[in-house]
């Protein structure tokens, strides 16, 4: 009952709102006219107004009708960037301030976005849709006003109409929600456009951080190992000179060379650890994190539940993210104990890092956390942090589809009863089909009914043919079952697999 009352209230509100849109329609008609006359400056604010109205409709559809509608607009244009000479360029014009190019970009963005025109269509037709919502109220109102007229049918009709309104309202609302979805929800194109833009950004960031990483490695090699090798070569040259004249000095120099080579190796080891830790290459994520835990001054508990190794880049991203989180916990959180849990949820690799530190970690401020997010973004991964002041801090890393391709094919074995049926079919199907079925039929047609092993021929006359047909059908059925069951099993299994995969893609 309460549901219906609420529905009636909502229907009334949405219907009246839709009627009020007539004002907006009038306004946009004026705007269209003015724009046509060249006064395009009125276009942008009107479109913004309409967008505000449709955003409200989307929100109400989500909140009242239970089916949220996502905005469908193309992403806004990036702010104009000055040229090296400080001017702003828009097509063939140069501007001193970013105002005009920005305005132009905005205008173009609004004008070329198909969602703008879909919004417009929705606005023009919405009062009609709203009328349907209001129709029951109108009918009920008419009949409620009727008792003032002398009409014997009016009062019961009014009651029926009111009742019908109450019952029909949820259906009408559902229809209205569908109408909103039809024009206001994102099209496949706008979804793709958004995704492309996001991927563009991620790619740029990944390329940036990769380039920075390479620069760092180059610098480290240049200043470290390379320089040391040069020095070693020079010292060895000196040793060659000194060998005959001053063997003692040569020997001392050789000791220095050995020392330098050792230092160079230590530096290279550190560098390699930063690029791709050897344990990670040798043992995979689980043991690499265990090794990390052993080297940490905190007490770190690691639990790993992974049967397969993720792809190497994903593994590496997860490893360095965990490493960074551990460093943060020790440095900023002052944690004593840390719990790391690595597990899989479907095809998602999930890492949970919890510490008993003082909390208050904020991804928007810590550059370390930003770095982790960037690292994960390249794999569609996300970092979620819960860190109330006073702790504890929990960080959850989700890397979706990290385990898709490395997962071995899981074969669901057939249940035992199916195996028994298949075995019986192949093993005994011949028995009813041939000797007791087809051969008996031939024998009966030939009129030779003296063969003692044709069981059907022992039956009384009228039962003989049904028995033969039954035997043939039984034999065919057994073979059919033996053939069909494994096929059906395999198909159903692969279908669930594919459905899961396609659902993943949809999301």
């Amino acid at each position: 009952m309460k549901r219906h009352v609420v529905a009636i209230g909502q229907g009334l509100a949405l219907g009246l709102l839709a009627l009020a849109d007539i004002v907006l329609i009038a306004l946009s008609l004026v705007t269209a006219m003015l724009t046509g006359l060249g006064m395009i400056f009125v276009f942008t604010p009107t479109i913004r107004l309409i967008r505000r109205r449709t955003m409200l409709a989307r929100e109400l559809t989500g909140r009242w009708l239970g089916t949220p509608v996502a905005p469908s607009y193309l992403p806004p244009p990036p702010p104009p960037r000055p040229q090296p000479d400080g001017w702003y360029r828009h097509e063939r014009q140069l501007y001193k301030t970013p105002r005009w190019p920005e305005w132009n970009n905005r205008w173009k963005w609004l004008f070329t976005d198909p969602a703008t025109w879909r919004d417009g269509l929705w606005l023009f037709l919405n009062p009609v849709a709203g009328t349907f919502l209001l129709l029951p109220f109108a009918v009920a109102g008419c009949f409620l006003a009727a008792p003032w007229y002398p009409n014997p049918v009016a009062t019961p009709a009014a009651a029926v109409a009111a009742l019908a309104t109450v019952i029909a309202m949820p259906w009408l609302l559902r229809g209205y929600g569908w109408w909103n979805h039809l024009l206001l929800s994102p099209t496949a194109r706008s979804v793709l456009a958004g995704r492309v833009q996001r991927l563009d950004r991620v790619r740029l960031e990944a390329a940036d951080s990769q380039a920075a990483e390479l620069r760092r490695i180059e610098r480290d090699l240049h200043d470290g190992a390379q320089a040391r090798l040069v020095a070693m070569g020079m010292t060895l040259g000196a040793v060659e000179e000194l060998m005959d004249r001053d063997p003692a000095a040569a020997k001392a120099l050789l000791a220095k060379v050995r020392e330098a080579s050792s230092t160079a190796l230590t530096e290279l080891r550190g560098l390699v650890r930063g690029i791709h830790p050897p344990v990670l290459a040798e043992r995979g994520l689980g043991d690499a994190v265990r090794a990390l835990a052993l080297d940490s001054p905190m007490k770190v508990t690691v639990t790993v539940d992974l049967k397969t190794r993720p792809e190497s880049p994903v593994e590496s991203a997860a490893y360095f993210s965990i490493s960074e989180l551990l460093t943060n916990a020790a440095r900023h959180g002052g944690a004593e104990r840390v719990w790391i849990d690595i597990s899989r949820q479907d095809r998602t690799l999930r890492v949970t890092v919890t510490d008993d530190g003082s909390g208050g970690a904020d991804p928007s401020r810590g550059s370390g956390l930003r770095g982790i997010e960037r690292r994960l973004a390249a794999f569609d991964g996300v970092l979620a942090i819960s860190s109330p002041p006073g702790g504890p801090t929990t960080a959850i890393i989700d890397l979706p589809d990290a385990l898709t391709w490395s997962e071995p094919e899981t074969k669901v074995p057939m249940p035992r009863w199916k195996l028994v049926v298949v075995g019986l079919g192949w093993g005994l199907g011949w028995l009813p089909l041939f000797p007791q079925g087809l051969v008996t039929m031939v024998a009966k047609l030939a009129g030779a009914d003296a063969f003692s092993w044709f069981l059907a021929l022992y039956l009384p006359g009228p039962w003989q043919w049904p028995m033969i047909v039954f035997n043939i059908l039984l034999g065919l059925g057994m073979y059919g079952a033996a053939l069909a069951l494994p096929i059906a099993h395999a198909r159903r299994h692969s279908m669930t697999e594919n459905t899961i995969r396609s659902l993943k893609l949809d999301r």
Partner: protein
Amino acid sequence: MSPRVVIAEDLYLLREGLVHLLQAHGFEVVAAVESGPELLTALTGERPDVAVVDVRLPPTFTDEGLQAALAARRAVPGLPVLVLSQHVEQLYARELLADGSGAIGYLLKDRVFNAEQFVDAVRRVAAGGTAMDPEVIAKLLASTARHEPLGALTPREREVLELMAEGRSNAAISQRLFLSESAVGKHTASIFGKLGLAPSDDDNRRVLAVLTYLNAARSQP
């Protein structure tokens, strides 16, 4: 009779270098192999007095050598193995020491540069002793340092503990630290007292006790 050695190393130059080095110091190299499966066959077939093994070997280039060494030690308990690697991990050290039978070495490849010390380590392992890389010990101590009662050790005692954990005898420690052997003996007794361990004269049992202690100190909550 010279000790019999099996060498496993995939880089030709390094393998030949090791062969020459050990032959020059009076070892008999019975096999020099370059892959994990070969190593396992050589270890269980030849039963050498000591094996010098690189962690990363073909065919997978992961921790093939370590796995082969561990498998061989399961088949032949206490088979002396000295593991060499470009990097040292506490994780691997723990796995090597886990069976508690000693005769284990775990060193960085750089340690080969100092021939005497390296050969000394090989001999120690062959004799059933332990040779842990100083870097492993340093990491172990660094990550255990905050926990009691290691904090109660004096700096000198820590130095002695580090050398002891590497697997060195009292004589070697005294030489290293320019102390008399009796002074080292006093230090070790004091360390064992502070850590609550039963004192022992057997170098190897002593090392294992210390390493086990350090590992335990880390892993308990």
